[in-house]
């Protein structure tokens, strides 16, 4: 009978109730989940999750586009994209691992500052261009407003600072002689280029702006002295290196000669010792076997 009712017995197996405490804990957790779920279901969260790939791609495109745009010369001090440009240059510099690379980067940045300065000035009409320069007086010259004058001052100061930084790298870094010469030549060319451009700018501008430009131009001309100084130092360094090299070579030769003569001396001494020992052996032999030896020898012969 029990066998027939086994399924009924299985149905009668005890069922247990979940505790109230477990229920309470569960509801607490459920509320937490529900709140978190509500927050992530907000429109922005939903948008970001649903279009995550597109959003990332869009952000990257926007970033690179903005970074590229920020490198234009008309993005100058005061422009909202300018900090991005500065940040980009810091990254460029961080990736210039050699001293030559760093000098090149600083020269490149200084050229950019020059272009920016040109860009600031070019915003203003060039005056009455039909009036010959000799005749044209201050009324046709470009006079910047205060803000642009301030930005021009900052830009040209930065240009000056970049060349100073390039010179500093060239003067303090250990480089091959030919590379040192090459980077100093590059700095010299850049300074010449800048002075020339600044002179041109000065001619186009009015008194207030002229002063800003002249200050930097004089500073650039002052670089000639510094370049000469760096050149001298580099030359001294080169000579020092050559001298040290020659010293090392000389020491090597001396060492090799010394070891050669020592070897010869040793060899001569060895020969002498050998002769001496042979002589001694002969004498001793003669003492031990004076006549019999000779007799034996003549018999054999």
């Amino acid at each position: 009978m029990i066998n027939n009712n086994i399924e009924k017995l299985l149905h009668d197996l005890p069922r247990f109730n979940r505790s109230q405490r477990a229920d309470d804990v569960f509801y607490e957790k459920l509320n937490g989940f529900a709140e978190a779920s509500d927050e992530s279901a907000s429109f922005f969260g939903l948008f970001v999750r649903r279009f995550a790939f597109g959003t990332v791609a869009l952000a990257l495109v926007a970033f690179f586009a903005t970074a590229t745009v920020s490198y234009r010369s008309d993005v100058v001090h005061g422009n909202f994209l300018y900090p991005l440009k500065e940040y980009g240059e810091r990254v460029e510099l961080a990736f210039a691992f050699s001293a030559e690379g760093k000098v090149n980067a600083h020269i490149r940045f200084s050229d950019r500052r020059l272009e920016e300065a040109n860009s600031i000035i070019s915003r203003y009409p060039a005056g009455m261009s039909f009036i010959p320069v000799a005749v044209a007086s201050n009324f046709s010259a470009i006079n910047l407003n205060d803000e642009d004058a301030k930005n021009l001052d900052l830009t040209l100061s930065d240009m000056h600072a970049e060349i100073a930084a390039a010179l500093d790298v060239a003067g303090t870094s250990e480089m091959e002689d030919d590379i040192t010469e090459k980077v100093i030549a590059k700095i010299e060319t850049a300074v010449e280029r800048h002075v020339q451009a600044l002179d041109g700018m000065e001619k186009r501008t009015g008194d207030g702006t002229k002063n800003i430009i002249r200050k930097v131009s004089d500073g650039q001309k002052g670089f000639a002295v510094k370049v000469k100084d760096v050149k001298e130092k580099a030359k001294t360094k080169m000579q020092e290196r050559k001298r040290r090299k020659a010293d090392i070579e000389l020491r090597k030769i001396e060492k090799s000669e010394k070891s050669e003569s020592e070897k010869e001396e040793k060899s001569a001494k060895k020969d002498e010792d050998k002769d001496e020992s042979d002589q001694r052996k002969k004498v001793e032999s003669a003492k031990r076997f004076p006549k019999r030896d000779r007799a034996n020898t003549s018999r054999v012969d």
Partner: protein
Amino acid sequence: MAEEFAEYYEANKKAIFNYALYRVSFDRDIAEDLTSEIFLKAFTAFKSFDRKRSFKTWIFTIAHNHLINYYSSKKTTLSLDEAYVVMKEEDVGAAVDKKGVLDKVFHIVADLPEAQREIVIMKFVNDLEYDEIASVLGKEQGTVRTALSRAISSIKAKYDQQ
């Protein structure tokens, strides 16, 4: 959404708790925790739950998957006496009258191979239909019927031996 889910929870919590309890050798604390985990897991996926489907089958599928990794490490069983100790008065009900007989059946069920035990629990403790069990386990109804039939034969045989 949370209110709707709470209704489902109230309707199914006892079934899932018992399913977990029988599967984890009557360790009440673990069964309580597992029940919470199963329902919270279900809640996170509740948006995608097709309302045309049976919630019971859906929650049992989640519970089945959740317990797959858990069961093997908890093989030991408590005695029915110990299990009764943790029960509340209202749980015991008619079971107390047949305690001696049920005790035997309980131990036989506890010693069944896991696959058979799960089907027996779903069928007799959780009162799931064959099609529901088949859906939860991802098997054919015929396979479930055969497995259950074998399990019952095995229980009968062991019961007679004792």
